[in-house]
């Protein structure tokens, strides 16, 4: 097949521009889910093997197998299969299912520690190489970190930074391999390289080196395909190849990199173009089309990285964030929903619920109604998907070809990347403001120039003034750490395979983040509307608070406190925006915690809102557990007030409700969930995780995990297998507000 003649031509024919190909050739679908087919016997056979392997992984403490000899790369391992003759889509990260690989360029000590936790160590050759000759990202960062940065890190003010693991978040435009074939991509990159010329400034040298590595990566990708007998140098010629080629491109990325979030982008409606064509030509049946998607998704579910136990504190449940964004609208008003949008969601029935791939619906009030209802049905029956507001993100970024990186972060596909920066602990920052810049636990001086507060009651204006100084200083140190991290990641662990599938010199945004928003808002509200008396120890450190009177709490649609939350987000974002960034990246900020809200809580003393020392924060932008007493909608309305323009890296909100709270019948529940999403998103909210579960199910799963291997629950921006959370995290999930009015 000649691709140019098989499809409607356009800009994409002459330049690398997948977006145009999709826009020209898509077949939007407005019908219902009734066309969907069950899994084939081949899919069922393979999934049974996977389920067995997953059970073994759980039994072996989360590590089914690992290779301690080979350093992973695109071509380091020979071809791996689940059961070759049943596989229509092939490719594993290593030579065996659920066998993890060492990717030491992020940090060798971490690989050693991860293996040591299972009584293993890297081979002598690998150890010698990394201890004597090679330098890693982690080595580079700690060579350069100042004492101040290290102190902020140790005391838990800036935490979870990608300085001892790979940054991830970059989404390669994996569709390019299918549409163009790798030879054409190499040609284009070679042309780019030849146009990057002197004078040889730092910037030019760096860019030439990067593009040169990308070309090598593309060549290696062809070799990787050959291991599986696939000729990736040419474009995909049919639906099966399009799925296979796209998966191979993604596989190259996860063989080479172990970034925290290795997201997929938005491939379903791209693949639909090939599937639709083959269906029209009568080459394949619907059952085969579903089989390609089922087996592709099955492979995505089997992606693994080697992690240390402590990593679990910030990212619980061994997530990989294979985020696939589905739906949304074109700027021209057409929908991007296709039959393959449905086929992707249908894998949650054909293979059962699952946290990965992290299926994200780009919600719009203009999406076809049948699709909206199907999404709601899937949420109600699987709790496996999340929603993000296309009607806010599309106009704000003027972009209609984007994927979500990780949980809530928009990335224009093939044109933009992101520098991930975890988050700062804003609640602890507030405590610095109350303690003349000292850590509330140890008394260590963290920030200077904050006057000591010795008044009997806290005064709102004084606290706000100090808080602003504290934010200014924390932002400065945070920014310094980020610049170091991304400089070193580029230098020692450059994502050459992913970057090879992105335009040369893409737009970059740096993704800062905050944790503890609800604590800060409620604390400031308590200071403003009640009387808060600090209780100080003999060193003058505030160790607790006595609150006299009541105060409005974030999560009840009360402007008095919600406006404080909005103001705090804006203030910190503005502090960050003032600072210079590596590679001139654009600063953005998220309100997202992943699952680190538990760990942040531990590192933070008592707060003026009445929260005791060590108690977990609410996740993301969620109101604090149990304080949103006016019901689900009031809670949603509070979060919806946080302005996306001040937190363009995303505002995460997770809600859990029992099925009955949505109505008596499935039909009513679907209608009401669609309406709930419309109501929330029409007020410009950005993100919603939806869990429809009984609390009792979770309690049962804690006692009998073996009976609930696939029980999936949305946490902050992603989903996990509930049984793979630690007991502490499970309890935290259970304490969260379950909305259950009957």
């Amino acid at each position, binding site marked *: 097949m000649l691709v140019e003649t098989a499809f409607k031509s356009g800009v994409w024919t002459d330049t690398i521009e997948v977006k145009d190909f999709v826009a020209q050739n898509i077949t939007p679908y407005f019908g219902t889910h009734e066309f969907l087919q069950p899994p084939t016997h081949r899919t069922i056979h393979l999934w049974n093997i996977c389920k067995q392997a997953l059970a073994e992984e759980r039994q072996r403490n989360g590590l089914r197998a690992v290779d301690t000899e080979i350093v992973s790369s695109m071509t380091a391992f020979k071809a791996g299969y689940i059961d070759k003759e049943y596989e229509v889509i092939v490719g594993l990260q290593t030579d065996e299912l659920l066998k993890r690989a060492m990717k030491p360029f992020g940090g060798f000590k971490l690989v050693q520690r991860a293996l040591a936790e299972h009584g293993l160590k890297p081979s002598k050759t690998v150890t010698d190489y990394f201890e004597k000759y090679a330098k890693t990202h982690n080595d580079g960062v700690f060579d350069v970190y100042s004492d101040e940065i290290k102190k902020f890190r140790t005391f838990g003010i800036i935490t979870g930074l990608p300085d001892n693991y790979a940054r991830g978040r970059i989404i390669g435009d994996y569709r390019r391999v299918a549409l163009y074939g790798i030879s054409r991509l190499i040609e284009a990159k070679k042309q780019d390289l030849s146009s990057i010329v002197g004078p040889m400034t730092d910037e030019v040298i760096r860019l030439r080196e990067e593009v040169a590595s990308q070309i090598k990566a593309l060549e290696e990708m062809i070799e990787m395909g050959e291991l599986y007998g696939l000729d990736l140098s040419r474009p995909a010629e049919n639906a099966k190849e399009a799925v296979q080629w796209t998966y191979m491109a993604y596989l190259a990325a996860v063989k080479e990199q172990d970034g925290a979030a290795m997201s997929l982008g938005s491939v379903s409606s791209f693949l639909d173009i090939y599937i639709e064509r083959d269906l029209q030509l009568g080459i394949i049946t619907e059952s085969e089309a579903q089989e390609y998607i089922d087996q592709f998704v099955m492979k995505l579910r089997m992606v693994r990285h080697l992690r240390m136990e402590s990593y679990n504190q910030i990212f619980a449940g061994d997530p990989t964030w294979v985020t696939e964004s589905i739906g949304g609208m074109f700027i021209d008003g057409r929908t991007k929903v296709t039959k393959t949008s449905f086929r992707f969601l249908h894998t949650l029935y054909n293979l059962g619920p699952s946290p990965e791939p992290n299926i994200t619906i780009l919600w719009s009030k203009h999406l076809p109604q049948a699709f909206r209802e199907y999404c709601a049905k899937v949420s109600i029956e699987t709790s496996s998907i999340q929603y993000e507001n296309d009607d806010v993100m599309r106009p704000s970024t003027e972009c209609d070809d984007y994927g979500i990186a990780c949980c809530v972060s928009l990335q224009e596909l093939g044109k933009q990347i992101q520098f991930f920066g975890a988050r700062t602990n804003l609640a602890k920052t507030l405590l610095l403001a109350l303690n003349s810049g000292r850590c509330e636990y140890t008394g260590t001086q963290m920030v200077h120039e904050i006057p000591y507060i010795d008044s009997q009651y806290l005064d709102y204006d004084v606290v706000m003034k100090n808080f602003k100084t504290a934010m200014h200083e924390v932002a400065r140190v945070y920014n310094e750490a980020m610049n170091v991290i991304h400089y070193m990641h580029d230098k020692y662990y450059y994502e050459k395979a992913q970057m090879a599938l992105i335009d040369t010199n893409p737009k970059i945004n740096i993704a800062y983040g905050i944790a503890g928003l609800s604590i800060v808002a409620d604390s400031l509200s308590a200071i403003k509307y009640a009387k808060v008396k600090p209780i100080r120890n003999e060193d003058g450190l505030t160790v607790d608070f006595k609150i006299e009177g009541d105060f409005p709490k974030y999560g009840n*649609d009360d402007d008095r406190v919600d406006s404080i939350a909005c103001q705090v987000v804006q203030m910190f974002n503005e502090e960050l925006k003032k600072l210079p960034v590596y590679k001139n990246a654009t600063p953005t900020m998220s309100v997202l915690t992943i699952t680190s809200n538990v760990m942040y809580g531990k590192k933070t003393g008592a707060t003026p809102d009445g929260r005791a020392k060590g108690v977990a924060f609410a996740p993301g932008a969620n109101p604090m557990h149990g304080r949103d007493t*006016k*019901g*689900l*909608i*009031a809670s949603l*309305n509070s979060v919806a007030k946080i302005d996306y323009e001040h937190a363009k890296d995303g505002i995460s909100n997770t809600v859990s409700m029992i099925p009955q*709270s*949505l*109505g*008596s*019948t499935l039909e*009513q*529940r679907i*209608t*009401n969930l669609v*309406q*709930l999403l*419309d*109501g*929330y998103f*029409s*007020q410009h909210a950005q993100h919603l995780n939806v869990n429809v579960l009984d609390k009792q199910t979770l309690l049962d799963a804690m006692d009998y995990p073996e009976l609930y291997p696939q029980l999936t629950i949305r946490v902050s921006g992603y989903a996990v297998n509930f049984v793979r959370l630690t007991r502490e995290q499970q309890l935290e999930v259970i304490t969260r507000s379950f*909305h259950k*009015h*009957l």
Partner: protein
Amino acid sequence: MKTIRVHSIESFGTHDGPGIRMVVFLQGCNLQCIYCHNADTIPLQSGTDMTSDEIVSQAIRLKPYFGTHGGVTFSGGEPLLQAKQLIPLIEQLHVHNIHVAIDTNGTVKNVYSHNIMKQHADLVLFDIKAIDAEHFKSMTSNTLFEAHTEFIRIREQACKPYWIRYVVVPGYTDAPHHIEALCNFVQPLKYLEKLQLLPYHSHGKHKWELMNMQYTLHDVEAPCEAYMQKLSNILNKFCRVEIG
């Protein structure tokens, strides 16, 4: 300004009328049904006084969630005990294009409550307690059965839609002759959109204890799904039935 005595407000109601609704539970009831699950709404004295403006502005905050189906439901207690104050409030909600449902036991007989039935309420949810006077008395400690059925006639004459809600309390409201009478009762009704069969549950029991009131249904268990379906199948021949 006239105030309304409110017990509580639920911002995400999905069981008291169509769609997502703000449910305003008004304080005070003239009946004392033996299976009441909101016993704390019965006394006339407690609750909080709210102005119409407060209630309307809350409803406006929730309006994005109402869509084409949802709106506000006044429940209780018995909302029509405050019928006079409700009329201007409903009119205010209508100015903002908000659908209003009244969840009533249909026993409060006066010109205001009748006017609400005839014209103001977009939808009425009639809680039918019993289908004969004697049974009514045993369920509600009250003798207002005639008013009960009179209300439905008023709504029929006004040609306006309504639902009937009937709580299935095993051993109390589900005898074959109860069900048969219910079938006969609903059969001629023209503007009845649906009959909701609500399975009895004991979630409200603790409220009776908190109120120092005697709860008599100690040994009654919630009817199972299959049983509810069986009753639904019988009634389905006479009107549209939904298990709530």
